[in-house]
């Protein structure tokens, strides 16, 4: 288990649910708690209701918005390695084994290595961050991720001056990932970031959500989260991180180059060729909402793209 007990919130800090949640949210949270309990081994000392996301003090990167339920986050997924329906990843990822796991770091770095997952994560104090996630399809969701800044790993491996981009690769295991048996996308899934995007404090390497280790359908055991970009940039089940000189290929760009660009910053002004990006449906809400520039993280990231034509570099 990567998530250690001492990081868990003390029972005295948990707000009584009646006073904090409205009845509707309570019902949703209660069903999520039921599922969470069923999925988790009960460790002595853990308190009932821990599976509802208890909001502690708001961190500098947290959004104020209501966190989606554990059930919503873990049953409505795009992870084509397990199938292309939204329910496929939770239904068909049962055979996937996220342990033992290694991550290879190579390319233009002074300290290339192959890490066992535990050794990769050990030096870092895991942070909980409540981020918005906006899918390119036009829906969004708010997730309490648990991880550490990618920048910390980058500093550890000491990239050379030739490192201009970071590229990531997902595991290729068609026997455990039935979706990989068809080439709906080119496997293995690859993604990439510009060096300054990778070093940005918002960019996270994530190993958990809702205070627990990542479930298979969310990209176990380790994935990337880049909240100002469309969700498909958040590559899942990472086995390789390479530092390269040239802008690397990315899977959705390979699949449809005129629809999915390298940058894929959330941008209501630049429509997808086939649908508008001006609005989005927040999971759990009835009415649609206006999409925000850079998914609402403009204050933190707009400077990375100053002077760039975001219509050209979509």
């Amino acid at each position, binding site marked *: 288990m990567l998530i250690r007990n001492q990081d868990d919130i003390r029972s005295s800090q948990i707000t009584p649910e009646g006073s904090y949640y409205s009845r509707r949210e309570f019902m949703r949270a209660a069903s999520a708690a039921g599922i969470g309990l069923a999925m988790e081994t009960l460790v002595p000392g853990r308190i009932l209701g821990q599976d509802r996301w208890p909001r502690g003090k708001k961190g500098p990167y947290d959004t104020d918005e209501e966190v*989606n339920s554990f*059930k*919503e986050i873990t*049953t*409505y997924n795009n992870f*084509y390695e397990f199938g*292309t329906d*939204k*329910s496929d990843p939770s239904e068909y990822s049962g055979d996937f084994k996220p342990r033992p796991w290694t991550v290879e770091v190579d390319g233009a770095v002074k300290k290339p290595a192959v890490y066992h997952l535990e050794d990769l994560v050990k030096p870092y104090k895991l942070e909980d961050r409540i981020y918005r996630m906006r899918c390119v*399809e036009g*829906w969004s*969701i708010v997730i309490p991720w648990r991880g550490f800044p990618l920048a910390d790993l980058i500093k550890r491996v000491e990239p050379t001056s030739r490192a201009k981009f970071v590229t990531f690769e997902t595991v290729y295991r068609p026997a455990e990932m039935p979706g990989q048996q*068809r080439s*709906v*996308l080119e496997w293995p899934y690859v993604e990439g970031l510009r060096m300054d995007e990778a070093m940005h404090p918002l960019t996270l390497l994530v190993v958990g959500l809702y205070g627990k280790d990542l479930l298979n359908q969310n990209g176990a055991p380790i994935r990337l989260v880049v909240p100002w970009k469309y969700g498909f940039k958040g590559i899942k089940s990472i086995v390789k991180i390479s530092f390269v000189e040239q802008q690397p290929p990315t899977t959705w760009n390979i*699949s*449809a180059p005129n629809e999915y660009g390298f940058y894929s910053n959330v941008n209501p002004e630049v429509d997808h060729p*086939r*649908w*508008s990006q*001006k609005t989005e*449906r927040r*999971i*759990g809400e*009835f*009415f*649609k909402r206006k999409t925000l520039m850079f998914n609402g993280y403009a204050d933190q990231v707009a400077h990375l793209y100053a002077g760039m034509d975001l219509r050209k570099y979509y």
Partner: protein
Amino acid sequence: MKRVIKPVAFVAALLPLGFLVWHGLHGELSANPISDITNETGTWTLRFLMITLAVTPLRRITGWSSVQRLRRMFGLFAFFYGSLHFMTYLYLDQFLDFNSILHDIPKRPFITVGFTAFVLMIPLAATSMDKIAKWMGGERWRRLHRLVYAIAAAGVIHYLWLVKADTRPPLAYAAILAVLLGFRAWFYVRPRFAQLRLAARKEAEPA
């Protein structure tokens, strides 16, 4: 048996809607229920179009004349689900924002072709009653209702153009449509070949 077919088929055709409502009320749709409703109603529109197109080939092959009476009902159900699909888009997706809808329709090819398919269904639904068919005359009615081929094709293209990468389901419908249209082409062409052969034989006969 014959008298039971129509009511049974009618109820069966309502089942997809029934299931959708049931799942919706019991919170069994996904985290994005409006998307589910849009997809389900769209899929059933396409399925009823295929079912409607399958009736005549089925009758010609099996000789079951009774299925022909179901064709109109299935066609109207295609229009029914198509209307639900369109209304879901208009209201639950766009909230009757006609400004953005009118902008969307010509700009997004998959919506253009989907909207076209729906609009073409309207005259067919409107002229489905026996009285109106009689008033129109058989030949004119048949010609109008041949639009169903274009409607079905437009529906398949609509589906193909909206999927992100998984083209298997829409291509499956394309294959089914190709087979059904293949049958129609065969029924059209075969008697004409026979006529040609007959004409050729008559010419070859000594006077």
